[in-house]
């Protein structure tokens, strides 16, 4: 029998039992759709987090108070308890490292902001003029904090776009006075809309000189220090220089943690990549279940069509002809299931993207290929046994059936 005829014969057979075919296609489709949707979700989460961290910049080192014992980056890196505080002196000392180009010490707190009668709760970020360059941010109006010494607490503020709209409406904000807590400050600039960014959304932030913030919150510690290094290649060397400086400032003990974007990205990439893989594995199990279903359905088909198999043999079909016909039938059902599942999965991923626009829930190519491939392979693999059974039937006994 020619390949085209085998395909046509198998196709007719598949269509002859619509309920059976529909069930099998559905089982396969659910498996493939699960792979597509779950990996889209996993990979979307991975890409989301990576995108967030990537916005930090590649030649950035973040210094946190507290030692992270494992040396690498884990969830603890962000919530270390603080045995010895980071101070402005530490920050200015870091500037002495030859490979450090810019620093931005951060001090944060919550306070009330008032303009005229309007009052609202807001987050205050104390930093320096270099923060703008370090974070690659832009201004909508006015200018940023002035270049001045770290200890200088000038009474100026830069506010986020949302705050500006809420407090000033359509009026000009630059040059106006605001009150933050008990401190009166002059607005010198308005931030451009930043959208998503790790940590703080600058749209609702009041940015003040770091000394001003420390005075406001009556503290001399820093939340963290952002350090920009001269070039990505210098990252490791710069990190060593910074560690030396900080160690010498803390009686030889390095109780701070230095995080680079690469380390963070690498860790998250690994964690979420593993998660995606695990999820794909779980989905693959449903494909294996579908494969077993294919086998059972095909075995039933062989039993149902025993008389027909006997007839084909009487008409001169070889064992190979019959084996191929049943194998192709199983493959066709799997293929239909895989394609239906692919469509369903893409639909699901589209639904997720619609519901959570921030999540880039696109199924990775490898997962789609693996899902479709596994579906076809399981279909064929689990189709072999029924096909061989059909091919081996004794024609006389097969014809005696029915």
């Amino acid at each position, binding site marked *: 029998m020619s390949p085209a005829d085998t395909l046509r014969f198998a196709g007719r057979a598949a269509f002859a039992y619509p309920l059976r075919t529909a069930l099998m296609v559905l089982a396969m489709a659910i498996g493939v759709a699960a792979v597509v949707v779950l990996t889209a979700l996993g990979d979307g989460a991975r890409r989301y987090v990576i995108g967030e961290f990537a916005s930090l910049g590649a030649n950035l080192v973040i210094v946190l108070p507290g030692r992270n014992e494992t040396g690498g980056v884990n969830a603890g890196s962000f919530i270390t308890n603080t045995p010895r505080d980071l101070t402005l002196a530490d920050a200015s000392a870091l500037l002495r490292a030859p490979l450090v180009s810019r620093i931005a010490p951060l001090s944060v707190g919550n306070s009330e902001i008032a303009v005229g009668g309007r009052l609202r709760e807001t987050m205050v970020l104390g930093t320096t003029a270099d923060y703008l360059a370090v974070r690659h941010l832009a201004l909508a109006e006015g200018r940023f904090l002035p270049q001045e010494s770290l200890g200088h607490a000038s009474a100026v503020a830069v506010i986020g776009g949302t705050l500006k709209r809420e407090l000033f409406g359509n009026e000009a904000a630059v040059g106006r006075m605001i009150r933050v807590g008990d401190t009166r400050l002059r607005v010198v600039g308005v931030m451009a809309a930043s959208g998503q960014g790790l940590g703080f959304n600058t749209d609702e932030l009041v940015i003040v000189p770091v000394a001003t913030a420390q005075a406001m919150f009556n503290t001399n510690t820093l939340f963290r220090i952002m350090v920009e290094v001269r070039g990505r290649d210098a990252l490791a060397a710069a990190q060593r220089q910074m560690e030396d400086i900080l160690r010498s400032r803390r009686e030889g003990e390095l109780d701070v943690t230095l995080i680079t974007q690469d380390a963070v990205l690498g860790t998250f990439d690994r964690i979420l990549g593993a998660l995606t893989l695990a999820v794909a594995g779980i989905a693959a199990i449903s494909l294996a279940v579908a494969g077993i279903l294919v086998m059972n359905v095909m075995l039933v088909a062989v039993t149902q069509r025993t008389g027909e198999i006997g007839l084909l043999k009487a008409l001169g079909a070889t*064992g190979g002809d019959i084996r191929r016909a049943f194998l192709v039938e199983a493959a066709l059902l799997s293929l239909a299931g895989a394609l239906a599942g692919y469509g369903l999965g893409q639909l699901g991923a589209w639904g997720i993207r619609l519901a959570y626009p921030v999540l880039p829930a696109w199924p990775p190519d490898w997962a789609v290929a693996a899902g479709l491939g596994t579906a076809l392979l399981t279909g064929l693999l689990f189709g072999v046994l029924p096909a061989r059974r059909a091919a081996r039937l004794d024609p006389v006994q097969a014809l005696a059936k029915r």
Partner: protein
Amino acid sequence: MAQIELAGIDRSFTVGDSRVHALSALSLAIEAGEYVAIMGPSGSGKSTLLNLLGLLDRPDAGHYRLEGRDVTTLSADEQAAVRRSRIGFVFQSFHLVPRLSAAENIALPLTLAGIAPAERERRVARALRDFGLEERARHRPDELSGGQRQRVAIARATIMQPALLLADEPTGNLDRHTGEEVTQLLEALNAAGTTLIVVTHDPAMGRRARRQLMMEDGKLKSDSARQSSRAERPPPAPEPLG
């Protein structure tokens, strides 16, 4: 050389603990173009003999020469090729593929033989015309009468122009009138040169054949052509069975 030569054929089945000798020490020769009826009580081995002749079954002992070639030693695929090109089957229960139309059922042997679609279509169209099935070409078996179904089955059995047509109770599922029609159809094919071997319960149908074989307990009890065949070729001495 006869078209079919069986020599010392044994075929037995194990049922439970006992062995059933469906055929024992059977020898037989059939010339090309003969019209043979195989008769005998139920269980006498008629179907087993026909299956052997059609290469659907292998004997436990003995030799079967078809057109001068020993076919008992052929591989399964070689036997399939012989069935495909030389042998046509007609069954009591028609054995049509339910999801295929009459035309597609008739085309099945051509498809299995790998004949090109255009040629296939031409030959099926002629068969439909010859068997008066043109109106029914697109109908599925469940939309056909018993007589029409058997005509489709006969058209399918002869589409490859086999040398040998084997029919196991072809009229068993048909009423007398339709059965008569089908018998005439088979006889017409025989008249055109095809060897026709029919298993039948019906003595009237059996008498119409030019040669009658009577089976009993797996042995040939009588052969209406035995006189002449014995003169030419005495059957080998029966060997004692183990």
